Structures are given as structure tokens and as C-alpha cells.
């Protein structure tokens, strides 16, 4: 059974709300999630059972993240349109297990998904604890979990510093459990089928120079090579996870399956798989770095000053007169920016820049000797960032 095709049957709702069974059912659910080794599909990949367990007994506000915060990723939107029942069932299971006092569906404002969610809650909302749709600004950091918690408590959708975890009241004092929409749908799949680990699927969003751009559901054995466009130029490299993800050279990536990626420690994050073929990769990285710098919430020093500095260094890497100094600055800056913000936004930007630096080392040399003839992405920057590619 799976998320988009061959979906399991809907939950038996009258069972779910029967008091005597509730605790027992919660324990069984957690056990099933643990056996399946379900990890969060929003980006951080934290074990879902552990997260839910730390919310037990606290009657949390459950926030379901349906934002697709990664600009090129659209899996949450696809899930809402194609598997709304699984989403609601998964949310209901988690809400029942944690006795959530409220369910908040977070979605980017004024999107078709927002309208779809409102309609969905109109139809099925009465099956959940008091629930509402929360429209969030379409900013990169606004769908980070503490941003959502802050917004749900009527604050700004900007990340917040937490001295205790969200599940223990890290924002605003009351416990909050934030789960990604795909994670919730997987909970429903696991509950009804209890698949062994190997059969758990995941949603990836193929983008760039791929055979067919869009969301697809893959299992552990899926080979990245299948994404390439036959009859076109060989891709150069692939960006995995999201804008704050990892570049791999295509020669390496094409040999990977989803399982082997996990084994070699490359996170799939929010499931972006972006192939680059014809464009100048160094220019693409520059555009993404500039975007990430501009998307800083401007709250933490290392992020608000570090990310623009790194983006500028990246541009100067291509200028023969400035390249050596820029390389030195990057070597100094990249290691000290990570892990020092209220959220992981700067860490992602640094991860992407660092992996690009090593994957595209040869290409950077091309530029310095004036040999790069690939079209620059600069002119196409705007549609690229809007996810139109």
C-alpha cells in the first residue's frame, strides 16, 4: 500500500474515538511507527515515533505542515489533491494518540492548496479535534516548525529561539507538535498495513533536467538514474533535499538508490531531486545562495550577515582577480556559520555551498580560465526561484 496509488482503505472512525481502547491503540501506533522507522518528511528527518512520544500526555497543539516550503517541491500539494483521506486519517491517528487539543493545518496563503484544505476540513473536519487552516506567508523560513508554532499563537511566522523543545512549550509556553503532511499520511499507511521498513515509500519532487518534472512516489529501490532524460545531454550533477541540500556529481548519484543514499548519509530532506544538465552549475548555485540570503528572517547575526557574505564570495569565485581571496573567505566562513541560528536555515545554505564547492571545483576552474560556455542562469533566475522550471 502506498500514498498516491494503491491507497489503503479509510480508517474506521467510530473505533478511533472509543475511549477504552485509546491508550492501547496509541502504544500500538507508536510501536508500528518505530518498526517502520518512519522519519519526518519535512526536511529534518527526525524519528516520528520519538517526536510523538515526547508529546504524550501534554495534549499538544498539533500543527500539520502542508506548506511545501521548498520552492521547487510540491509534494504536500499533490498529497492534498490526490490523497486527502490518508492525510486526514494520519492526522486523526496522531491527534488521538496524543489527545491533541487542537489541529492546525499550515499552508501557504492564497494557494490552491489552501482552498483545497479548507474544503477538505469542511467535509471531514468534524472527525478531528477542533481544527483550522492557518495561512502562512510564502517565505522560506516561515514554514520552519518554530515559525509555525509562533504564527499559530498569533505571532510572526519567523523562527523562534527555543531553550526547551517545542513539544515542551519552547514557543509561547504551550506544547506543540509539528508534523509534515507526508509524515502524517505515512502514519495512516503504516497503521493500516504495517509494512516492513523496506516497503515504506516516499514522495520526491523531480525538477530540472528530468524525464518528467513533478512529484512521484518511490520506494527504497528506486534508482536516481531513472530520472534522467534519455536522448539529452548527460546531467552534470543533482541537488538533493532542497535548496539547503547536498550536491552530488551525476556520475555518483546515478548509481544510487533511495536506500543507498540513506546509507551513505545523504539526507533527502524535503524530497527535492533537482538535476542540472545544460546550465552553468556555478551560476545556479549563486542564484540559490542569493535567494537563501534574502530569505533570512534577519534575526540572528551569523545568518543575516553570513549568508549575504557567502553569496557574494560565491560570485567573486568566478572573477580571476578576486577568486583566491574569495576562496579563502569561504574556507573561513563556511565552517563557522552552521548551528548558530534559532533555526537551521543558515546550516542548509552552508551545506549547499560547501557541497557545491567540492562538486563543481573543476567547473569553477573553467570559469577562471574563461572556458565555461554554458548558458548562465542569471537571466532566468526569477522563474527558477518561483519553481517554474
Amino acid at each position, binding site marked *: 500500500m502506498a500514498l498516491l496509488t494503491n491507497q489503503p482503505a479509510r480508517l474506521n472512525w467510530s473505533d478511533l474515538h472509543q475511549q477504552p481502547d485509546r491508550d492501547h491503540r496509541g502504544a500500538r501506533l507508536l510501536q508500528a511507527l518505530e518498526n517502520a522507522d518512519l522519519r519526518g518528511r519535512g526536511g529534518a528527518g527526525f524519528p516520528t515515533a520519538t517526536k510523538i512520544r515526547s508529546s504524550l500526555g501534554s495534549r499538544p497543539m498539533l500543527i500539520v505542515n502542508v506548506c511545501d516550503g521548498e520552492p521547487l517541491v510540491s509534494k504536500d500539494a499533490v498529497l492534498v489533491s490526490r490523497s486527502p483521506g490518508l492525510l486526514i486519517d494520519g492526522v486523526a491517528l496522531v491527534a488521538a494518540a496524543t489527545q491533541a487539543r487542537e489541529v492546525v493545518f499550515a499552508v501557504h496563503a492564497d494557494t490552491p492548496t489552501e482552498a483545497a484544505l479548507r474544503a477538505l476540513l469542511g467535509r471531514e473536519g468534524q472527525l478531528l479535534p477542533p481544527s483550522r487552516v492557518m495561512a502562512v506567508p510564502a517565505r522560506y523560513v516561515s514554514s520552519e516548525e518554530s515559525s509555525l508554532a509562533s504564527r499559530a499563537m498569533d505571532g510572526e511566522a519567523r523562527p523562534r*529561539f527555543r531553550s526547551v523543545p517545542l513539544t515542551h512549550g519552547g514557543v509561547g509556553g504551550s506544547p506543540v507538535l509539528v508534523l509534515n503532511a507526508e509524515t502524517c499520511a505515512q502514519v495512516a499507511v503504516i497503521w493500516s498495513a504495517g509494512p516492513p521498513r523496506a516497503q515504506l515509500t516516499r514522495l520526491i519532487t523531480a525538477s530540472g533536467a528530468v524525464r518528467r518534472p513533478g512529484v512521484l512516489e518511490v520506494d527504497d529501490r528506486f534508482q536516481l538514474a531513472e530520472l534522467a532524460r534519455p536522448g539529452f545531454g548527460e546531467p552534470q550533477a543533482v541537488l538533493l533535499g532542497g535548496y539547503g541540500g547536498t550536491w552530488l556529481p551525476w556520475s555518483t548519484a546515478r548509481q544510487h538508490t533511495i536506500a543507498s543514499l540513506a546509507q551513505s548519509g545523504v539526507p533527502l530532506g524535503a524530497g527535492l531531486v533537482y538535476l542540472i544538465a545544460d546550465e552553468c552549475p556555478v551560476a545556479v548555485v549563486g542564484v540559490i545562495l542569493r535567494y537563501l540570503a534574502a530569505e533570512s528572517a534577519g534575526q540572528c*547575526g551569523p545568518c543575516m550577515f553570513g549568508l549575504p557574505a557567502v553569496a557574494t564570495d560565491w560570485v567573486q569565485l568566478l572573477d580571476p582577480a578576486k577568486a583566491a581571496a574569495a576562496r579563502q573567505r569561504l574556507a573561513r566562513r563556511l565552517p563557522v556559520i552552521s548551528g548558530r541560528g534559532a533555526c537551521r536555515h543558515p546550516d542548509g545554505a552552508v551545506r549547499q555551498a560547501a557541497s557545491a564547492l567540492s562538486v563543481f571545483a573543476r567547473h569553477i576552474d573553467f570559469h577562471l580560465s574563461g572556458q565555461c560556455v554554458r548558458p548562465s542562469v542569471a537571466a532566468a533566475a526569477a522563474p527558477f526561484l518561483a519553481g517554474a522550471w
Partner: protein
Amino acid sequence: MTAGRASSVRVDPVACTGHGLCAAWLPERIELDEWGYPIVDATPVPDELVAMARRAAKECPARAVLLTRAV
């Protein structure tokens, strides 16, 4: 926080406005990056440094330096 209990230094990066006083009080755990913001070594503070760590927390004009008990 009683003496003898390991504690470590943390900075609230949103509150921190980069005055840099903490690095002057506790250079053993805190250095400043090129923009003046603290890079904190979260290794627990030994007993003989606890007083200085407290001082660093107290002197921070933005009250962004936190002492947390290490887990």
C-alpha cells in the same frame, strides 16, 4: 546552579546583538566571528570557570548569554 554541577554556555542568537562582551569575559568558551557575534563552545564549563561564565551572562547588554545545566 550549584558548584560542581557541569553547566555549559549557550547564546540566544535572536536576542544577541553582537556587543561582544561575553567573549571578553569568557574567552575560554566564546570567540567572536568576523561580524562580532559569538561562536560558543558548548563543552561544559569547569568549576574554576563557572564564576566567569556567570559574569559573561550577567554582563551581556542584550541578556542573550544563558548558562544551562549540561545533560
